[in-house]
Each structure stands twice: as structure tokens, then as C-alpha cells.
């Protein structure tokens, strides 16, 4: 709770809103105790007094009543009615929504049909109809406003409940013997509550406005009693001759609604976990580069050369060193495997090459990426864009999420061509067709006109590969391209990639966590742990005789088919979080061979020939 308040008031606008609405609330509560003239006592002799006249700070209205007094009493009434309406609507609406969402099926269908009916009305028509039936009056206006808002809550909360009811912890609770009522109250409700609070805090201002509106139309509070809306309604006749009688209540409504909205937005931002992590920041077109040291001047090796690359994520005060000085290069026609567990920094390394790390929070803080003799990290956006997809292309993991759902796959292929080459659409389409054939998509001509959701996962990944190949790039960076696929499909995709690389002399950087895959596809591998390369070398050499204890133990962990039933090797402990890396070897706390000097000072990646290892007690001597 204190964390929530801290978060809330860090947002300055929300804090401002809170202060304003709190002072208005205090004033409204204290109104009966203040030395004010009676709000409903008329004195026609004193009508339309201007503000700041003697005895009437805000002047008087058309019946000579004191405006300040009426304003405060009206505010009191408007707030009470608006907040009451919000509570009624939220309670009933949420209850309906939770029941519909949790039970699903026919119950859901029936309830939601009813809600749809109510939502088929422009909301004021329903409110007007209710007031027409019940007769004008403030209580009836409250009922009307609450009633028209129930469907909004019901639908909103139902959506959340449906997704919660499908979550595994609800199944787990059922298996633990809990009944439906108990699950709704103790499992679902605590998770829905923040959403209800958000929905309420963002609609209460709206409901205050609505009740004021009905009163403004003369359908809410009846004279002589006045809320802010009816004050405004009564003042309308004298708008031109005595504008202050309109301005005073109007500004009060505005202040209330504005401060409630500001506070409500603050509450939403503070309660919505997605916003907490800053995830709703728009990633820039290119990763921010902020190198603390000059780029290495080492000449380029191979076709693509990463030199001492460092990429960090800056989240609030924390700095995650996702990539901590990685050097890699790939030769033409070579397949380089980068292998590591989740959080090892392998994907971030891959995305850093073409500036595709989401930024914020990503920042490239050091090193160089050399391609064609140029340092890509220092390149302008336009120069980098020209190379993206044309010289260096990517294949991503989940082909459903990575293809645009609303464009036909053929059009996405054509766009990839036309972003780099001035060719006619028909020529580009012919080229796309050629590639579809090359990646062995059956019925390629008709497949061009499919949307991604009309294809299977394997087909979509073939499209992803075709799209990467379409401009004949020199390097392809494949980021876990087969992880989301079934084994039989994976085998086909890997075979395809291997054929294409041999036919076309492509250089491939292949990111994966799977030793079986690297062993089959890659010529050379680099093993990453906690943002650094711990070992590299020719695939067969590393797999047969791993030098780093981490590599050795990781390989031992992987069960291999054909070994029968057995106990598996495990590595104790967990990979470190990269915001607070220990000195020395990051693997030392989990390593059986670790000695005190493993956790002291920098340990270099050293070796002879193609092999290198970052360890002072290697399993195999590589030098």
C-alpha cells in the first residue's frame, strides 16, 4: 500500500489532482459547519450581485441567493450523488461481469446478450427513458446514471474474469477442492479488484458529470435544492447578462472532474503492472547508442564483426548488463551458433547488430559492430535502414507474432523488396514467388495471398525465411527460429536453412538454446553465460571436449535420445541476474571447480587458434 502511494504520488499530475479533489472534498464535508448564508433563502432585491460584493463573495443568482453558499452545498450534493452512482454501478456491474466471465457458457451468453442490449442504446437515451418513467428528481437521476453504467462495468470486468478463469491457478484451486463460490471470492476477486478500482477511478468523474448533466436538463435535482448541474441550468437564461452565475458552477464541475481524472489516471498507472516496467514506452526506430569509450579500432574480421559489444537495459535506477563485452565474427558461408540459456544475452547480442533492441530501455554502451568496413553503431538511421533486410536480415522466433496480422504475406514480401529496390510491384511479386518456391512452400502462388493466421507455424516460418532471403543478404541472423515449432517441422526448417546457406554462400548467426540444433547446423559455436562469451570454437571440438566447466555441465544436462531411462546431470543454483554481477567469473557460485581467485578480477577469453575459453581452471587445455 505504501509502495502504491509512493508510486502514485511520484506522478506529479496525479498528486496535483489528489490535492485539489481532497480540498474540495474537505470543503464539501465542512460546508454545514461554515458560517454561510442559507443557500435557499431568496432576496430578489439583491439579485445578480457581481462577485466580491459585500457579504456575497461570489455574488448572487437570479433570486438573490448567495452563490458561494449554493456552490458549496451544490458541490456536496453533486459529489455525493456522483460517487454513490459510481459505487452502485461498480458493485452491480462487477458482480454481473464476474459471474458471466467465471461461469462462461450459457450463463455468460445470456447475461452478455442482455448487456449488449443495454449497450445498444446511446447511454443518455436509456437514462432519459428511466427518468421519464420514474419522474424527474435527483434520486431518480442517480438510479439512471448508475443503471446506464452497469453494462460498461459488466463488460469490462467480464473480459478480465474470462482471462483469469482460464489461468492455471484457477484449475489448481479446483483440484485443491475449492468450490465455485470460494474460487470466485478468494482466487478471482483479489485479481479483479485492481481492475475494478481502475475502472471506478476513471469513470467516477464521468458519472459526476452525467448527474450534473441530467440536473442541467432539469431532470435531476428539483428547485429549490440545487446541485452544480441545476445551478448551471438555471443560470443559462441569464448567461449573457450575468455570466458569473454560469461560470461559478461550471468551473467547479470542471475542477472536480479534472482532478478526479488526473487522480484516476495516476491510480491506473500505479496499479497497472505493464506500465510499471515502462513497457508502454515506444521503442525508437533504432537502439540508442551511448558509448562511454571510443569504438575499438581493430580491423574487421569476416563479413560481420562484433567487437566488445556492450548493451544494457536502464530500468529506473537499475542497470542490467545484458551484453557485457561480446566479440564475435562470422565468415561468408559460415554458420556461427550462439548458445545460452534464457537471460544469457544471446538474443540481445543479435538484436544489437542492426539497432533493433527496444530503446528505451535498451542502450548500447560500448564496442563496435563492423560490417563492410563501417561501424554500424555509429551509422545514421538512414544508412542503417538501408542495410536492414538488404545486407543483414533477421529471422525471428515466433512467426505468428512476427508477421503483420493484417497484411497478406505476399504483400509483406513485396514490401521487403520495395523498401530497398525500385522495382515494379509485379516484378517484386515474381521475386517473392521465386523465394516461396526456394523455401519449398507448396502452392506458392496461392499462398502469396494468404494472411499469416491462415498458415501453419511451419509455413509461417518458411515465409519468415523467404522474407529474410528476398534481397540476397550477406548475413542472416536467426534468433531461435525453430523454438516455437514441433520437432518434425523443426527438422525440415533446419534442413532448409542448411541447404540455402550452402547454395548461396550465406553467413548465418544462429541463436539457440539447443545443443542438438547447433551440433547439426553450425560450423562454430560461442557459448554465452550472463552476458559474456565463456567459450568458443569449432562445434565438434567444443561439444566433444568442452573446456569451460559451464559448457561441460550444460551439455551433460541435456538428455539425449536413445539413452534410456536414467538420472540426469543438473547444475545447482540459478543463473545470476545481470543487474548485479559478481566480480570475476559469473559461473563461479555454481561451479564445482571454483577457487577464491575465480571471483577476483577480470578473467580473459583466451585460447589458441579457433578455440578460446574464459576460465582459469578449464576442463581441457586449449592453449
Amino acid at each position: 500500500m505504501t509502495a502504491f502511494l509512493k508510486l502514485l504520488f511520484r506522478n506529479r499530475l496525479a498528486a496535483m489532482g489528489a490535492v485539489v479533489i481532497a480540498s474540495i472534498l474537505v470543503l464539501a464535508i465542512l460546508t454545514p459547519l461554515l458560517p454561510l448564508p442559507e443557500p435557499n433563502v431568496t432576496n430578489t432585491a439583491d439579485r445578480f450581485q457581481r462577485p466580491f460584493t459585500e457579504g456575497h463573495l461570489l455574488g448572487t443568482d437570479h433570486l438573490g441567493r448567495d452563490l458561494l453558499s449554493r456552490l458549496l452545498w451544490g458541490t456536496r450534493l453533486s459529489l455525493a450523488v456522483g460517487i454513490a452512482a459510481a459505487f452502485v454501478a461498480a458493485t452491480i456491474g462487477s458482480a454481473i461481469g464476474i459471474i458471466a466471465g467465471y461461469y462462461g457458457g450459457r450463463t455468460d451468453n445470456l447475461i452478455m446478450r442482455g448487456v449488449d442490449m443495454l449497450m445498444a442504446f446511446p447511454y443518455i437515451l436509456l437514462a432519459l427513458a428511466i427518468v421519464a418513467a420514474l419522474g424527474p428528481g435527483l434520486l431518480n437521476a442517480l438510479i439512471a446514471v448508475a443503471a446506464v453504467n452497469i453494462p460498461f462495468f459488466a463488460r469490462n470486468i467480464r473480459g478480465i474474469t474470462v482471462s483469469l478463469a482460464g489461468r492455471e491457478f484457477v484449475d489448481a484451486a479446483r483440484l485443491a477442492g475449492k468450490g465455485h463460490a470460494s474460487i470466485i471470492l478468494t482466487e478471482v476477486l483479489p485479481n479483479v479488484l485492481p481492475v475494478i478500482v481502475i475502472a471506478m477511478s476513471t469513470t467516477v468523474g464521468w458519472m459526476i458529470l452525467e448527474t450534473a448533466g441530467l440536473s442541467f436538463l432539469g431532470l435531476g435535482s428539483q428547485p429549490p435544492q440545487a446541485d452544480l448541474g441545476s445551478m448551471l441550468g438555471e443560470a443559462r437564461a441569464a448567461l449573457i447578462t450575468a455570466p458569473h452565475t454560469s461560470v461559478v458552477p461550471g468551473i467547479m464541475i470542471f475542477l472536480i472532474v479534472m482532478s478526479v481524472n488526473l487522480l484516476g489516471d495516476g491510480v491506473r498507472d500505479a496499479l497497472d503492472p505493464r506500465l510499471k516496467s515502462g513497457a508502454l514506452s515506444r521503442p525508437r526506430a533504432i537502439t540508442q547508442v551511448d558509448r562511454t569509450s571510443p569504438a575499438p579500432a581493430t580491423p574487421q574480421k569476416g563479413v560481420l564483426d562484433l567487437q566488445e559489444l556492450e548493451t544494457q537495459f536502464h530500468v529506473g535506477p537499475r542497470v542490467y548488463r545484458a551484453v557485457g563485452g561480446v566479440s564475435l565474427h562470422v565468415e561468408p558461408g559460415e554458420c556461427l551458433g550462439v548458445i545460452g540459456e534464457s537471460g544469457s544475452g544471446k538474443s540481445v547480442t543479435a538484436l544489437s547488430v542492426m539497432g533493433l533492441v527496444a530503446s528505451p530501455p535498451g542502450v548500447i554502451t560500448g564496442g563496435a559492430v563492423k560490417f563492410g568496413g563501417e561501424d554500424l553503431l555509429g551509422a545514421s538511421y538512414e544508412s542503417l535502414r538501408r542495410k536492414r533486410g538488404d545486407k543483414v536480415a533477421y529471422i525471428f522466433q515466433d512467426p505468428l507474432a512476427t508477421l503483420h496480422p493484417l497484411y497478406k504475406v505476399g504483400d509483406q514480401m513485396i514490401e521487403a523488396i520495395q523498401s530497398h529496390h525500385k522495382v515494379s510491384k509485379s516484378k517484386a511479386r515474381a521475386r517473392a514467388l521465386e523465394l516461396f518456391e526456394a523455401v519449398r512452400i507448396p502452392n506458392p502462388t496461392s499462398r502469396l495471398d494468404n494472411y499469416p493466421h491462415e498458415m501453419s507455424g511451419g509455413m509461417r516460418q518458411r515465409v519468415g525465411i523467404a522474407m529474410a532471403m528476398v534481397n540476397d543478404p550477406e548475413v542472416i541472423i536467426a534468433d531461435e527460429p525453430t523454438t516455437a515449432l514441433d520437432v518434425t517441422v523443426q527438422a525440415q526448417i533446419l534442413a532448409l536453412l542448411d541447404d540455402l546457406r550452402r547454395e548461396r554462400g550465406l553467413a548465418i548467426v544462429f541463436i539457440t538454446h539447443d545443443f542438438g540444433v547447433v551440433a547439426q547446423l553450425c560450423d562454430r559455436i560461442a557459448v554465452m553465460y550472463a552476458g559474456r562469451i565463456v567459450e568458443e570454437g569449432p562445434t565438434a571440438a567444443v561439444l566433444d571436449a568442452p573446456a569451460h566447466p559451464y559448457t561441460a555441465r550444460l551439455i551433460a544436462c541435456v538428455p539425449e535420445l536413445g539413452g534410456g531411462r536414467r538420472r540426469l546431470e543438473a547444475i545447482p543454483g540459478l543463473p545470476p541476474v545481470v543487474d548485479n554481477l559478481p566480480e570475476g567469473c559469473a559461473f563461479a557460485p555454481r561451479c564445482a571447480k571454483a577457487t577464491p581467485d575465480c571471483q577476483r578480477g577480470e578473467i580473459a577469453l583466451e585460447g589458441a587458434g579457433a578455440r578460446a575459453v574464459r576460465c582459469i581452471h578449464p576442463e581441457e587445455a586449449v592453449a
Partner: protein
Amino acid sequence: MGAYIVKRLISAIPVLFGITVIVFLIMAMIPGDPATAILGSYATPENVEKLNRDLGLDKPMVQRYFIWLGNMLTGDFGRSFSLNRPVLDEILERFSATLILAGVSFVLCSLLGILAGVVSAARQYGFADKAITFTVLIGISVPSFFLGMMMILLFAVKLRWLPVSGMYAIYGGGDLPDLIYHLIMPALALAAVATGVVARLSRSAMLEVLRQDYIRTARAKGVPEGRVIYGHALRAAMVSIIPVLGIQAGFVLSGAVYIEMVFQWPGIGRMLVDAILKRDILLVQGGVVFVAGCYVLFNIAVDVAQGLLDPRIKT
């Protein structure tokens, strides 16, 4: 696509049916002797008897409902006693005025709102974003009726640029320029809130879309950033913006009631408020059913637009 439209139209039938049931049930809530309650204590016995006959109040409720529904289907919405003319004639006349006002406001709020939201998202945390966010915040917090009154004070009374109220000038008006001249203030006042809502939603929809993997794919294949934002991202964001436009149309129609009061616009909202205050139940019933029916049809158009945009929806 044709099949989809037909399907949506068929699915509207139960909704329209439900609307009439809801309206009928609400009107059945009127306590006491309805005819006297409606006509008030000044009613003559003839009037009460006539109303009882018009409403068919001597018959059971279900039967009454079907008679009312049957009459409406043949275009007979009954006769308004306060105006002494057929309800449908009055509705059609008033609704066309509302349609002009609300239609223009709707187009304004959609275009301005989406534009503001997209610019705001594309320049997140920049000056344009802050300026737009602040304006939008004021826009959604100010009551439209108060905004309208303040506009009258400024543009009509003080600056004398625009007419205070009405749809046409009383003398010598009636042509299109005159209508536009009268329309500017009410249309803007009505569009203000909805523009704010659309802008906020468009901004967050764009921000949500911009961090999707397929945007990264578009960038990875070298698509120019302008096309990434105004092509790929906006198109995907429209999938969540369009349904909100449908809801906003309802809000614009609702807000029109206030604006019509403030600007003396001869629309259906003012008619309804007057009818409620005069307890002219047939006019209220007819007006509510008519407008709600039009809104349902409009929302089908929104759904169809959504189906055209998003190939995953059809079937």
C-alpha cells in the same frame, strides 16, 4: 464479405427486438394510474380515456407490447398529445437536425482524435505529445454544456463572430452557408469530449502496437520509419480504435442532447427532454426506440468496417 454483412444484419434483429422490450418495460415502471400520471392532474377525462385507448392500457401487458410493436412496424408510432401531431413525423423532422449536428461532430472527433493520438504516440514524451495530452485532458474534463455556454460568451457575445443559437437565421437564412455558420460552435462543443477520448485511446493503441514483434520485423527488413508508424502500426491500431469510434458515436448522440439545449438546436434531444417534462410518453417511447434503432444499424456498419480491416474476423 456479403455473407458477413447479411449475418450481422440478421444478428441485429434480436437486438432491435430487445430494445423495444427494454423501452416497453421501463415505461411500464410508471407508478399509479399511467394515464393520469402521464397527463397530470390538469387532464380532462376525455384526454385520459383517449390515452388509455391509445396505450391499450385495458389489455394485458404482453398483448399491449405486441400491439405497440406491430403498430411501430407499420410506421404508426402513435400521436403526440403535447404537439398534436403523429410521433413519427416529429421524430423524422427532429432527427434530421440531430443527424447533421452529431454527424459532423462524429467526423470531426474521429479525424482529429486519431490524428492527435497518432502524433502524440509517434512523438512520445516530446513537446507535441505533452501539448496534446494536456489539451485532451482539459477536453475530457469540461462538461460539454458548460463549454458550449462559454463559447457563446466568447465567440457570439464578445467577439460577435458566430450566432448565439439556432439552426438557421430567422430572417433570410435557410441555405447551406447559413447552416454551416450556425453549426460551427455546437459541432465543436459537441466534438470536444469525444475527440479527447479518441485521442487518448489512439495514443495508447499506437503505443501498444509499436512494441509488437511485427513492428520489429518491419524495421528489421528496412521499412522506412514513416511507413512503419503510419502504415504498419496505424493499421494495426485501427483494429482497436474502430470499435471505440462506434461507442463514441453513442456518446456524440448523447452529448447532442445537452448541446441542443444550449444552442437551441431543434434536434431530437431537445424534443425528448421537453417530452419528458410534459410527460408525453408516446413521444419519449417512439424517440428512444427510433434513435436506438439507428444506432444499432450504425454499429453494424462499424462492425463491417472492422471486418474489412481485419481478415481474422470474418466467418
